C-alpha cells in the first residue's frame, strides 16, 4: 500500500508539469486543470519550482474542519474523500496549511491526492518518490 508521495528534491524539478498531466490523464482527461499535484515557479523559473501535493498528515487539518465528515482519516495518514457526503463548501482547502487541496470547479468537490503514485512514473528527474508501508 502506498503511504504517500514524497517530494525528494524539488531543486531537480524542471517544471515540465508531466506529473500534472499524468494526474488528469489517469482519469481519462487531457488537461492541467483537475490535477491533484501542482508545480509552479517560485517567481521566475530560474529560481526553480515548488511541487505541492498532499503530505498525508497523521493528524490531518482538513479532516477536522469538514462539517459533514466527508473526509475520513486513512490509517497510514492522509484522508479519503467520500464524495457522496461532500457539500463542496471548500473549508478543507482553507484548512490545509500547504494548500495541497484545490477545487474541481466542474464537479464542485475538492481535489485531494489519491496516493496512487501514477505521477511518479512521469517524473524523469527523480523529484517524486513513493513511500510505501
Amino acid at each position, binding site marked *: 500500500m502506498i503511504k504517500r508521495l514524497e517530494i525528494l528534491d524539488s531543486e531537480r524539478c524542471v517544471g*515540465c508539469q508531466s506529473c500534472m498531466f499524468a494526474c488528469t490523464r489517469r482519469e481519462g*482527461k487531457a488537461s492541467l486543470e483537475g490535477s491533484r499535484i501542482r508545480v509552479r515557479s517560485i517567481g521566475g523559473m530560474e529560481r526553480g519550482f515548488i511541487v505541492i501535493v498532499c503530505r498525508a498528515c497523521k493528524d490531518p487539518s482538513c479532516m477536522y474542519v469538514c462539517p459533514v465528515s466527508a473526509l475520513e482519516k486513512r490509517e497510514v495518514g492522509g484522508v479519503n474523500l467520500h464524495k457522496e457526503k461532500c457539500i463542496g463548501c471548500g473549508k478543507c482547502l482553507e484548512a490545509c496549511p500547504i494548500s495541497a487541496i484545490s477545487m474541481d470547479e466542474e464537479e464542485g468537490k475538492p481535489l485531494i491526492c489519491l496516493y496512487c503514485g501514477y505521477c511518479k512514473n512521469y517524473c524523469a528527474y527523480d523529484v517524486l518518490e513513493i513511500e510505501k508501508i
Partner: protein
Amino acid sequence: MDPYLYRVLIIDLSKLSYRIEERKEYFQKYLGGVGTGIHLLKEFLNPKVDPNHPDNPIIFSIGALTGKFPMVSKMVSLFKSPHNGLLGESHAGGRSAIALWQAGYGAIVIKGASLIPLYITIDGSKVNFRDARALWGIADTATVGRLIREREGQSGFRTILRIGKAGEKGISYANVTTETYRHFGRLGLGAVFGSKKLKGLVISGKRTVLPKDKKEYLKLYDEIYEQCTSFPTKKYHELGTSENILPLNALRALPTKNLKATTFEKAEILSGENLAINFLGRRIACSHCPVGCIHLAILRERYPDDPYFFKTNFVSYDYEPIYSLGTLLGIEKVEDFLKLMITVEKYGIDAITTGVVLAWITEAFLKGLISKNEIDGLSPSFGDAQTYLKMIERMIESSSEFYLRMGHGVEALVEKYGGKEFALSYFGNEISGYHTGPGAHLTHITGARHSHLDSAGYSIDQKFLKEGKLPTPKEMAQKLFEEEALRQVLTSLVICLFARNVYTLERIERCLHAFGWNYSEKELLELGKNILIEKNNLKREMGFEIEKVSIPKRVLETPSPFGPLDESYLKETIQFYRKLLTPI
C-alpha cells in the same frame, strides 16, 4: 475531435474589441499551427501591406495534438516580417502553447493598432485590454514580465508574452519573449507588437479535453513519453544543442570571425562541455515537455561602486547564440559571451541577427567602409565584447543613421556602406551557424522563412559528408523539399522539432486517431507539401522571387568540409527546388 480548437479569438486593437469565430474547416483540413495559421494570415493580410502598418495582423496558433501528448509544446506565430518584408513565421514554447489550449482557442488573430500602449489578458472567454502606459519604455523584458505577473496576481497557470525596448523602437529583428527564456525570434514579431503599441499578452484558462479511447490514449502516451526521455531525444537535456560546438569545430564548419574561418582556436572555451561544467545553473522545461532542454547559465557580476555588491544573472544559451555572439565575433571568454547574451535578452532582440550584424560591422570597419566618426567614435574588433555591448546600446537608442540601420539588419547596412560580399544573409535574414556544405546555405535560400530550421540542410550535408560525395542538384532539391514538407506536418500539430524523431508519421496518425481524427500517413505528407506550396505562393504575393538570390562571396570563398562551394551547384539546386514548388 476537439471543438474548442476550432475557436478563433479575433482581437481588434484599433477598436479595442474582440469576437470569437469558428474556423472549423481550417482546423479540420490543416490540423492547426502553421497549416491553419497560413490560411488565417491569407484571410486577414493584404500581402502588399507595410509590415509596420496596423493592418499587418498577428496570428498565433496551436494544433490538433497540443495539450494531449508530450513535446507538443509550441505555439506558432505568423505575420508579415518587418525584417525582410516576407513571411514572418516564428515558433516558441515556454507555457504559451498549453496556455492557449487551456484558454479554449485554436488561434488568436490580433489586428489594428492601439492609440496608447496596452497589454491584453485572455482568461478563457474573458478578454481585457489593460493600460500599459507605465510599462512603455521599460527596457528589460524580464522586468516587464515581473510587473505584469505582479499586477495579474500570482496564482494559476499562464503565459506572459512581452516585448522589451527593441520592440517598442521598431528594431526589425526584435523578439517577443515568453517566460523570460523563450522567444518568438528571428523575423521581428517584437517590432510588430511595438507598431501596435502592444507591450504584452497574457493567456490562461481551464479547459479539459477527453480522448476518444482512453485505453488507446494511455498506451500511446507511454510509448511516446518513453521515446522523449531516452536517447537520442534525451541529449537535448544533457549538454543541449551547445554539444555541437566541438564537433562542428572539428569538422571545420563552425563560422568564425564573420566566416573568414571555420574553426575557432577558443572553441573549447565556448563549448557546451565547458559551459555546463563551469556556468550551468539550472535546466528548465517548456510546459508538457519532459526533456527540459532550456539551459540557464549563471553569471555573477560585481558592481563597480561596491566591492562586495554582486548581481547574479541567469541567461539561457544554445548552440546558435554561442555561434553568433561567440565564435562569429571571435569572443574568447565565456563571461563576454554571456554578457552579450544578457544584453540581447534584456532588450529582446534576436541573438543570431545581432551577432551577424556585429560581425559585418567589425569587418566593414577594419576594411574602412565605415569610419570611426560614423559609429560614434567606437573601434570594433573581433573579440572586443565591451565595444559590442556599447554598439547594441546605441542601436537600441537609434543614436545616429548608422545605428538606425544597424537596427534593420545587415542588408540595411550594406545598402548604404557596401560590403555585400561579406554580409552573411539571404533574403534579408541573417544566417545560422553551419558552414557544413551546400545544404546549409540552400536551406537558408529555399526555406520559407530562410531559417536553418526550415529543412535542416546542415544535417543533409553531414550525412553526405560521411558518404564522401554530394547528391546531384536534383536529389538535393528533392531532399530539402521533402524535409521541409514533413516539417510542415510537425509545425501544424505543433510538435517541437526536437521531437522530430519521436513523432514519425505512423505515430502521428495514431495520435490523431486517439482523439478522433482520421488522417493517413500519405494524407499527412500530402498536407505538408500543400502547406509548403501555399506559404511560398503567399510569399510571391509579397514580392518574393527566388531567382533574385544573391550568394555572398564569403560563403563561396571560405572552404566548407566539401571544399569551396560551387555556385553553379547551388543555383541549379535552386532551380529544381523552384519547380517542386510549382506542381504541374
